[in-house]
């Protein structure tokens, strides 16, 4: 039973493996530009080809780009973010609001995906959240750091199509038991029991007793069986 859980945990990680490998490829392609110091438009020119190729080849991704750490040379104290988003058949460059005085200001340096990737220096997967200042929608983000000479200069990230990812993961969970995929804060990301509310915190559930728990990936997620 436990071995089955570990296999399922690995399959869940595999759902995003190719996507992460590609993000790491983009990180490698943009690292020289970030290390050399550059302006936003030069960064966009270097990043656009691999990002567009990524959006073309990965249906799980709906948007992707690079966010540069505030301290990186040449881009000013606020850093910068270049981003593209698929809209139907088109791919468009998305301009985030970079005026701190505006109500719609997107402070990416404070966002969970940016900070986690910078701090952990690992492949980072962020559980669905409402991205009020970005997509305005329920969003999942996959992120990898851009590391040059042991310093994190920026983060390559992708917005995932939550429905598609969730459908793939739902198929992998054990339908014969109450199996939950939990994020690092024990919030339900996916569940084989449809009566358990997605995003609910385990501690808020009235009758949840964890019988078994196995790790999933490197972001502190786990797969659990409830009694």
């Amino acid at each position: 039973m436990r071995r089955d859980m570990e296999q399922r945990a690995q399959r869940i990680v595999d759902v995003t493996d190719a996507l992460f490998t590609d993000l790491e490829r983009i990180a490698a392609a943009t690292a020289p530009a970030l290390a050399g110091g550059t302006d936003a438009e030069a960064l966009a020119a270097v990043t656009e080809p691999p990002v567009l190729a990524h959006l073309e080849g990965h249906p799980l991704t709906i948007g992707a780009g690079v966010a540069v750490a505030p301290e990186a040379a040449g881009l000013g104290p606020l850093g910068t973010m270049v981003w593209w988003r698929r809209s139907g058949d088109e791919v468009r460059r998305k301009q985030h609001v970079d005026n701190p005085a505006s109500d719609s200001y997107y402070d990416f340096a404070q966002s969970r995906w940016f900070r986690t990737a910078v701090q952990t220096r690992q492949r980072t997967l962020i559980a669905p959240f409402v991205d009020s200042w970005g997509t305005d929608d329920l969003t999942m983000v996959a992120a990898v750091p851009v590391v040059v000479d042991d310093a994190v200069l920026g983060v390559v990230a992708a917005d995932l199509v939550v429905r598609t990812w969730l459908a793939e993961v739902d198929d992998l969970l054990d339908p014969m038991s109450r199996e939950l995929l939990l994020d690092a804060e024990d919030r339900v990301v996916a569940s084989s029991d449809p009566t358990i509310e997605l995003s609910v915190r385990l501690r808020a559930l009235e009758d949840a007793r964890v019988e078994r728990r196995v790790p999933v990936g490197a972001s502190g997620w786990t797969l659990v069986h409830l009694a």
Partner: protein
Amino acid sequence: MLFAPLDAHGRAETVAERLRTAISLGVLAEGDLLPPEPELAAQFNISPVTLREALNRLRDQGLVTTRRGRGGGTVVTAPTVSQIRVAIDQVRALTALDLRDLADWRRALSLESVRLAARRASSEDVAPMPRSVERLHEAGDGIEGRRAESRFYIELGAASQSTRLSTALINAQVEYSPVLTLVYHAVETREHVARLLEPVAEHLREVRVREAEQAVADAIGFVADRAGTLRSNGWQA
């Protein structure tokens, strides 16, 4: 919502009014570049000529300036005074029933958001709330106060994990903005509401649903009462 297409008979003044509202609410902040004219005209579904006329009116009122040529565009330059004036113009038409309706809706959305947030919020969702409350406490005028409070409620909406609730709460805040701008003119109001909202983040972290609901209901009720009182005094500070 503010940039939703107008019908075929939309006029320059309606567009100007929409842009004026966006500027007065801080949705477009001082220094923000408006989208290029062809794009903005397409968004409103009007001719570039009509848009040009609307922008002329805003220019005459000192709300925007336009720089021509490369790297140019139309920039928002609204000073604080005109934002207050716009708020007063917009609340003048509101009756006591209108105020009640706005507060009812806001309360319904906020309380449901709080209930869901207590069950679902991540630490990341809750983390920015204390700072927004602090900003409300430290705000220097009604505009800063309204902005800080809006940020708090938007964060609360996001914490519910419901996109419909989140969107509805943002729209409700935008609609209520002129009222909030005037209500938060008084420093005592800003400080009192900040005190009421301060414990909400911790209640959410600890899944204390009832306490979180009570705090938010009290804050909304207090603001609604202040709005009613101000209205009966002709919106004099």
